């Protein structure tokens, strides 16, 4: 596969360089919302949608900024776009599914400070992806985030029943689990070049 191929761009973001397990992006929701499977799934969907919208906007914005030589404003404008996209999703979720709105709680507005989203916008700029590549990259990253979140949720549901020493309950155990997951994903590393 050629690094520029759309299928490679997707696989790269989805599995090989998974945003959570290889780049350590979006760890707060990864540890915070991975308690239950269905919440994890919905969180993944919401994040993927925000990623898609902000990737789209970031691509357009970057063209404008480069055109007018305002690259130093990139960070500020990206974060403003992401914050508005999150506001949009928040309003939509509140209107369409109040139950989901309550389940996601504080983590919904916190998508703004989810580094995976700003990271995505920055990476696609650094890698100089075309419009189509950027879109595919954002969908791949969102799918990868959802996958990691779901896997973690499944593992943690199991772990609640496991008999472990009291001091390792909670965060320490979650980190060990995440380490094992990350180790598993390293097995895919041979698929890509970078």
């Amino acid at each position, binding site marked *: 596969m050629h690094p520029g191929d759309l299928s490679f761009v997707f696989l790269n973001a989805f599995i090989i360089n998974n945003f959570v397990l290889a780049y350590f*992006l979006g760890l707060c929701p990864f540890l915070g919302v991975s308690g239950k499977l269905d919440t994890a799934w919905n969180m993944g969907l919401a994040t993927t949608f925000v990623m898609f919208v902000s990737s789209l906007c970031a691509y357009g914005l970057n063209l404008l900024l480069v055109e007018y030589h305002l690259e130093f404003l990139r*960070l500020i404008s990206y974060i403003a776009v992401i914050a508005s996209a999150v506001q949009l999703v928040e309003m939509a979720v509140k209107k369409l599914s109040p139950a989901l709105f309550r389940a996601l709680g504080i983590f919904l507005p916190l998508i703004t400070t989810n580094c995976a989203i700003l990271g995505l916008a920055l990476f696609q700029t650094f890698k100089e992806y075309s419009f189509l590549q950027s879109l595919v990259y954002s969908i791949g990253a969102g799918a990868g985030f959802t996958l990691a979140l779901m896997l973690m949720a499944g593992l943690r549901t199991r772990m609640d029943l496991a008999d472990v020493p009291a001091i390792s309950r909670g965060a320490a155990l979650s980190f060990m689990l995440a*380490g094992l997951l990350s180790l598993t994903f390293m097995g895919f590393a041979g698929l890509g070049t970078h």
Partner: protein
Amino acid sequence: MADLPSKQKPITADTFLRGLWEENPVFVMLLGLCPALAVTNSAINAIGMGGATTFVLLGSSALVSLLRKLIPKQVRIASYIVIIATFVTIVDYAIHALSLELYNALGAFIQLIVVNCVILGRAESFASKHRLTKSLVNALGVGVGFTFALLCLGSVREILGSGTLFGFPLFGDSYQPWVVMILPPGGFFVTGAWLLLFSWLKERRQRKVAKEEEAVHAPG
């Protein structure tokens, strides 16, 4: 807030130490984990990242604290983010000019300081409610605490993963580096191990306190 003297307690050592130890952003509050894990594959990177974050923390806390009466409540988060992004842009350009090596090692994570929840958390919960000096002292405490945590992770990972500390070899040539420790899984494992250590220390102290109380209340 001169008319509310009770709300503004004087600056004590606690203002500084709280962020350093009791409310350590990484090990206790579990905030700012993304940079804490991503760039700590060597001690130098850890210090660079910690220093950059501390600078942004100090700058944004100062500005938020100065502007706290001017920023309307409804748009405060957006204003804080813009303030933080400004300081991050400064740091980004400064590191680029000062040390290209560090800039390449930290990569996009310098710009990602914007979304470090530690900084927004400080702005929202402390700097927006306190005077300039107190906010600065508190921000410095949290910044040092963050750097300390990063250094804890970075030094362990570098020693195990490359057999060096700050680039100086520690072991003889026969040492087989434990490469997985500088790769992503190592970040999770080392953080997990530190958390285990801290919860073990906490539990031991609690048991000690309980035992002492028992001894005091014991009859005779």
